[in-house]
């Protein structure tokens, strides 16, 4: 009887002792990619400090822009590994915070949220990225400001217009700032141009758009309640320049 009780107590003690425990070294990583980088990769290392293996049930990122994967589906006791999170920078700017949720069969930590914070350096900050004139409006030049990022030094920028109907003039206003004056030839017809802005040292390209917009739409009677609204016009594509682009360097 005493032996049986002792065996029972020992088996419970063994069960408590034989836990799985997946411990991540860090659950938040901050990345500082270079301006030309297309991806930022974070390595979240972990170790199974328990006595039984841990199985990964799922590893899901908060957005489609981040891919996350583990090296193995099961982590034996005492083994180390890592979850790799790859963030596609795309055309994003500023500080991007993306999370990866890891689900395991570890009863102590079934869910772990890993945070990837990516500080995307902004070589040039273009503001605004869109200037427009209404049809028939006076074709006065409009200004676009280009600010150089604090950690960079840029002495010259090159501005290229995709359409010859728009003139650009670049001047340096000092303190790491440039001013681009854009002016259409006339505002009689709706058209547009894409301005390509590039610094002398970097292949990274920045864009701004200048357009003469179509006439504002006539006010429409709202759809009666319960009926779908009228569909907006079909997708339009930006006009493509037929002649060679005009460029300006400063």
């Amino acid at each position, binding site marked *: 009887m005493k032996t049986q009780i002792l065996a029972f107590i020992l088996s419970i003690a063994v069960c408590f002792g034989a836990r799985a425990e997946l411990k991540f070294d860090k659950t938040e990583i901050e990345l500082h990619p270079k301006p030309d980088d297309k991806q930022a990769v974070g390595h979240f290392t972990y170790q199974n400090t328990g006595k039984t293996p841990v199985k990964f049930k799922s590893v899901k990122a908060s*957005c*489609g*822009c981040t891919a996350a994967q583990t090296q193995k589906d099961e982590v034996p006791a005492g083994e180390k590994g890592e979850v790799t999170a790859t963030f*596609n920078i*795309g*055309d*994003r*700017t500023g500080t991007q915070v993306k999370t990866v949720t890891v689900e395991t069969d570890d009863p102590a930590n079934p869910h772990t949220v890993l945070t990837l914070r990516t500080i995307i350096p902004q070589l040039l900050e*273009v*503001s*605004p*990225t*869109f200037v*427009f004139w*209404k049809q028939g409006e006076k074709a006065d030049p409009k200004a676009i400001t280009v600010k150089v990022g604090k950690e960079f030094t840029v002495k010259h920028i090159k501005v290229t217009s995709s359409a010859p109907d728009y003139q650009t003039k670049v001047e340096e206003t000092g303190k790491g700032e440039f001013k681009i004056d854009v002016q259409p030839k006339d505002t009689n017809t709706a058209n*547009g141009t*894409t301005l390509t802005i590039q610094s002398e040292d970097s292949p990274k*390209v920045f*864009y701004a*758009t200048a*357009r003469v*917009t*179509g*006439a*504002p*739409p006539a*006010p*429409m*009677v*709202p*759809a009666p*309640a319960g009926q*779908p*609204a*009228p*569909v*907006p*016009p*079909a*997708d*339009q*594509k*930006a*006009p493509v320049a037929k002649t060679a682009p005009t460029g300006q360097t400063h």
Partner: protein
Amino acid sequence: MKLSLTRQALVLAALSLFPAMGEAIYFRGKISWRSPIPPSEMVSVDQARALGGNVIWVDARPDEEFARDHVPGALSLNEDRWNELLPQFLAAWSPGKKVVVYCSAESCDLAREAAERLRKEAQVPDVFVLEGGWEAWLKKNR
């Protein structure tokens, strides 16, 4: 009766609650507790429909999700290909038009981020985020 330091601090902290609550009630229309998007920048599906044909629908979801299904006539504008897709949106826009941006659901941040970029970088006025996103649209339309 002189109160201890802790009690003094607690009384001050408690007193401050009353005007704070009053202010929260006063500003309830200008700030949402659920999301950083102010109520003035969000529209429901019904409100978006009521804007009529003056609306440009913008889908902030990734390309694959847009290709699978989207609001009829919506333009794709996601941050993966922002520079490539923005000119197409700007070509469709003209002064007076309203813009409604959506992503998959209420919890998704992509629409808010895209809307903020349109407002701050391109300085496009009248940009709204669709409350409930694509999920809410499907519920009302399918």
